[in-house]
């Protein structure tokens, strides 16, 4: 087990090192090194995964740990924890990573930093695998930051474009704000448990009721949970830290598929899954609200955008919100299943968009249209993934989304005061179908808008279409429903007693499975909503019966709000960035003018006068006057020597020795 895990984990790291130092000189600039490494990782991940699957044991668990930092009365261990969630994540990560690697061979062909690109991809794979392997909060924070670094490097990969370097910086800093919250959460846990950061031990500690304390009227456990979730808000681009993800689309498209759709942004969801039993009902409610609001909020922003990648980016934010919402309402299996299905169909969508961009040399959907004939494989892959994300039956998205919505609905029926969560979720389902079909219609159907774009367009090479085909197969529902294998291995952990609703009496049903009735209602409702969305989209963007322009005109203010993304970026610009710059400048001014000029240099005349004019070498004054005066005369002397004898180094030496002797003499008085 350990050997296989280490291979899965460290081969990409080795590939990274080889690529960084030798990449340019290798055959084909070393793409095969990275691809080979991730392929091997994938194979071993599958071996471990299918072994586990064969055992039908949802409680499968394997751990190991090493001493890492040990001081007297303090130790941090480095350990690995492998269970069914870990293994599922490993397969998802290595599979998508492998497909993106292969795809990139075609997509990035001819780029001048080709080998460095693969180096970064390998580094990301290593960090992401590390993130899901480790068994404690301190270690996960390390890999949490490292995937952020990989993301920074890849978003800014084409760093000669100012927009790319801006986006990279923004992504790193925005997520780091969330990470500070996570770090504070870790500090609280570390302090409260006296150093227990391993997930399993921590859960045991909490279950024993030892985690006590209050802060501002909330239990400290809730506070710690919410702070940890801040990390997830940043990484998974939840409101209000969602602003970095759309900008992150400046990175190469395969990167968007891997990092900003399938894996890294799902790290936040993974964290909530992993720490699920740690969250109090209050914290879970917070997560549910943030998740469902983000889902709706981002879906509305996707409605008006014309940049194909940005639409997908908002869609990703929205879907991640779904997962958070699912976990928040206690639909644990659904939340995690949606992570897995989403990884496949969203990666597929991004890779399809990459294929389109590769062919059309534009990201603006208004210049596309009619690409269906030119790019049949890309078209079919996009359509399948779109059907999946829209929640059409027989596709994977339907399976997971239905479970999510059922969870939300049953949560709402038991806690009517929180019905808003479910309402947002259902509206989002309709909007998702609408904007995704809008994307398909605008891109592939209708008359070509731009003849130049159209005539250039062609189907992409096999290295790019093969991953699309594989991901398309994985977007079908039977993959996940066959024999109910997923529910057989991923099961909601037994809730700890404080989670079954004891601390907040008003919150029910966290522990319950959704009722059959709510399942049925959900199926009907979600199909109806998806159908409506698709139909409206058809009327607007295929038939042209309804005109988007007129509607935009009619609801001008709303349209403008959406186009400007609710002015969130502007809000931060005015409330955070500018005041910070003003504060910097003020501090610098204060430092120069007040501290330095007034407080420090202000003393100079006084001191030097004392030193020079005081002839009093009395014993009482020996400390202040003598030593200071000596210093100054040496200083003065040094200046004189420098002026008269520049270049005659012997003199400096003699002077230095003389000064040394003088000081020694004085001190020996």
């Amino acid at each position, binding site marked *: 087990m350990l050997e296989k895990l280490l291979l899965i984990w460290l081969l990409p790291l080795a590939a990274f090192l080889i690529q960084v130092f030798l990449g340019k000189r290798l055959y084909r600039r070393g793409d095969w090194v990275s691809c080979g490494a991730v392929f091997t990782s994938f194979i071993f991940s599958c071996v471990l995964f299918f072994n586990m699957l064969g055992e039908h044991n949802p409680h499968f668990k394997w751990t190991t740990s090493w001493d890492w930092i040990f001081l*007297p009365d303090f130790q941090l261990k480095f350990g690995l924890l492998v269970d069914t969630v870990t293994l599922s994540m490993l397969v998802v990560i290595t599979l998508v990573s492998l497909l993106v690697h292969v795809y990139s061979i075609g997509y990035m062909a001819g780029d001048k930093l080709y080998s460095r690109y693969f180096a970064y991809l390998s580094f990301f794979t290593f960090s992401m695998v590390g993130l899901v392997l480790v068994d404690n909060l301190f270690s996960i924070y390390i890999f949490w930051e490292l995937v952020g670094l990989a993301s920074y490097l890849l978003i800014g990969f084409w*760093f*000669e474009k100012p927009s790319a370097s801006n986006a990279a910086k923004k992504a790193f800093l925005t997520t780091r704000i969330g990470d500070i919250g996570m*770090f504070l959460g870790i*500090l609280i846990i570390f*302090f409260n448990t006296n150093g227990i950061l391993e997930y399993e031990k921590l859960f045991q500690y909490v279950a024993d009721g030892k985690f006590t304390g209050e802060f501002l009227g909330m239990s400290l456990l809730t506070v710690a949970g919410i702070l940890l979730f801040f990390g997830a808000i940043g990484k998974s681009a939840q409101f209000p830290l969602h602003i970095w993800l759309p900008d992150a689309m400046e990175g190469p498209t395969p990167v968007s598929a891997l990092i900003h759709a399938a894996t890294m942004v799902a790290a936040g969801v993974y964290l909530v899954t992993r720490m699920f039993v740690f969250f109090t009902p209050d914290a879970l409610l917070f997560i549910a609200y943030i998740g469902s609001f983000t889902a709706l909020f981002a879906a509305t922003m996707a409605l008006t955008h014309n940049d194909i990648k940005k639409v997908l980016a908002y869609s990703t934010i929205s879907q991640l919100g779904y997962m958070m919402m699912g976990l928040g309402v206690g639909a644990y299996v659904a939340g995690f299943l949606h992570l897995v299905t989403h990884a496949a169909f969203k990666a597929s969508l991004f890779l399809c968009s990459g294929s389109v961009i590769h062919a059309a040399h534009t990201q603006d959907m208004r210049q596309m249209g009619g690409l269906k004939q030119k790019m049949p494989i890309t078209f079919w892959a996009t359509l399948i993934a779109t059907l999946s994300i829209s929640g059409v039956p027989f596709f994977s998205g339907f399976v997971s989304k239905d479970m999510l919505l059922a969870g939300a609905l049953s949560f709402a029926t038991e806690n009517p005061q929180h019905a808003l969560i479910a309402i947002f979720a259902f509206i989002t389902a309709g909007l998702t179908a609408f904007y995704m079909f809008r994307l398909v219609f605008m891109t592939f159907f209708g008359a070509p808008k731009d003849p130049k774009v159209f005539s250039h367009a062609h189907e992409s090479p096999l290295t790019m279409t093969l991953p699309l085909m594989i991901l398309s197969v994985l977007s079908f529902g039977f993959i996940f429903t066959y024999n109910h294998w997923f529910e057989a291995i991923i099961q909601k952990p037994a809730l700890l007693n404080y989670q079954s609703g004891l601390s907040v009496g008003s919150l029910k049903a966290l522990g319950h499975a959704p009722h059959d009735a709510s399942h049925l209602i959900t199926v009907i409702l979600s199909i109806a909503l998806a159908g409506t969305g698709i139909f409206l989209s058809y009327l607007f963007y295929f038939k042209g019966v309804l005109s988007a322009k007129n509607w935009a005109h009619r609801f001008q203010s709303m349209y403008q709000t959406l186009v400007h993304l609710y002015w969130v970026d502007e809000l931060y610009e005015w409330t955070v960035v500018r005041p910070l710059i003003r504060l910097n400048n003020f501090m610098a001014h204060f430092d120069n003018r007040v501290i330095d000029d007034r407080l420090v240099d202000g003393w100079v005349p006084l001191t030097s006068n004392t030193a020079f004019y005081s002839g009093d070498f009395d014993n009482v004054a020996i*400390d202040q006057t003598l030593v200071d005066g000596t210093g100054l005369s040496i200083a003065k002397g040094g200046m004189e020597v420098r002026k008269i004898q520049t270049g005659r*180094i012997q003199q400096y*030496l003699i002077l230095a020795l003389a000064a*040394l002797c003088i000081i020694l003499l004085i001190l020996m008085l």
Partner: protein
Amino acid sequence: MELPNFIYHHLLSWMIFLPVIGMLVISVLPNAKKEAMKWVASGFTLLPLLLGIALFLNFDRQEAGLQFMEQYSWIPTFNIHYFVGADGLSVTMILLTALLSFLCIFASWNIKEGLKGYLCMFLLLEAGMMGVFCALDFFLFYVFWEVMLLPMYFLIGIWGGPKKEYAAIKFFLYTLFGSVLMLVAMLAFYFYSEPHTFSLVELSKPGTLVVKDLTLFGIALSAAAFKKMLFIFLFIGFAIKVPIFPFHTWLPLAHVEAPTPISVILAGVLLKMGTYGLLRISFPILPQETYWFSYALAIFGLINIVYGALCAMAQITLSEKKGGNDLKKLIAYSSISHMGYVILGMSVFTIEGINGAVFQMFNHGITTAMLFLLVGVIYDRVHHRKIDGFGGLGVQVPIYTGIVSLAFFASLGLPGLSSFISEALVFLGAFKVYPSITVLATLGIILNAAFFLWALQKIFLGPLNQKYINLKDVSARELFTLVPLGILVVFLGIYPMPVLDLMKQTLDQILILIQAA
């Protein structure tokens, strides 16, 4: 490694005085033999480094007390000894000094004017620094402290930039002012100890220092108040070196004016003497006062962290006219911020905090040395340091860009690199004691990330500034100075125990001393 006895038993003395021998050798070489002088200098800094490695290998990790001690009577009348030794607190600093001094000789390769004087001063400086970290007699400590000051003054004042005289005098006077306060404390320790002694070991033993009530300038001072006063005197003396706000303004100036290798030494080694002094002298000798002062110390740490980071960022947002836009100043202010973590870590008296603090001293020494060396690399080529004046260098000089990125990310505390471990330890230790201060201090994490990434973007990203299409990447000699530091940054970030092992027992001992008080 087997060393001959006459070296092994006097290991620290050799490390202190080998550079002095080197200085004497260079001073008799003819002026024209510039290459020979440089190689002699590198030889006489390499030897202490090799001895440092021997020290590292032979150092007993389980021993909390002093090792490699040597004690000889020096001025018997006043019970002054030549007394040196190393424990977990000083050994990391000794190693850092040996390493940086050696590398800095290679960073000095391009010094043209007055090479002989420069190298002599540099070697004297190394001797002084080694002496400060090895000395166990307060008087000896003070002598080395002053010995170090002098070459530093000349190195800045003669080989520095345009405002070198002002910077050198300011540095000199400022430090001297601190020395005077330290001198007062030293004399007080001497006269109030029974029997009179300067030995730091004796003074640290409870009961040696017996302060009585006294009258000073007609003001009656209780013993307790007088001890607090002594603590504050020492604190100011050391605070200037760290530097702690508001005693920090000499630092940006001195850094900007000093030649590259001297900035490296200044930031890499000299700043640590402040915090080292606090831990070596103030903490063990005045444990009660240390405890009394700890909250203030934590606040100073917090101010340093946030204030330093804000001032560093102002270097990007402010124009040159208003005193901004200087890469070296940015790094100088970032040093103030990073030393804040050290102060915060030592103020809380927890095992994580104090280990984090001393480890941070070491890590900051490495990373900031890298940063200043890197500024030197670019300054040698383009002769300016304006953050705005570059642009898009990433395309032109990829290796340089890679190393700068490593150094920047190390400085902003990226996990996997050494500073993260020390900062995290500081936070873990500090949160237990001062949660609110620690929460505010985490602001430093985000501010540091902000200005380092911003600077990275301004200098390396975006389209290439056409002025620099002929810019050359780092040379082999420059790589030689940078790579060892880079390797340490990565290695200690992944596995920090080799350094933590050295210090942990001694630091535990210091904590016990303070907790007893």
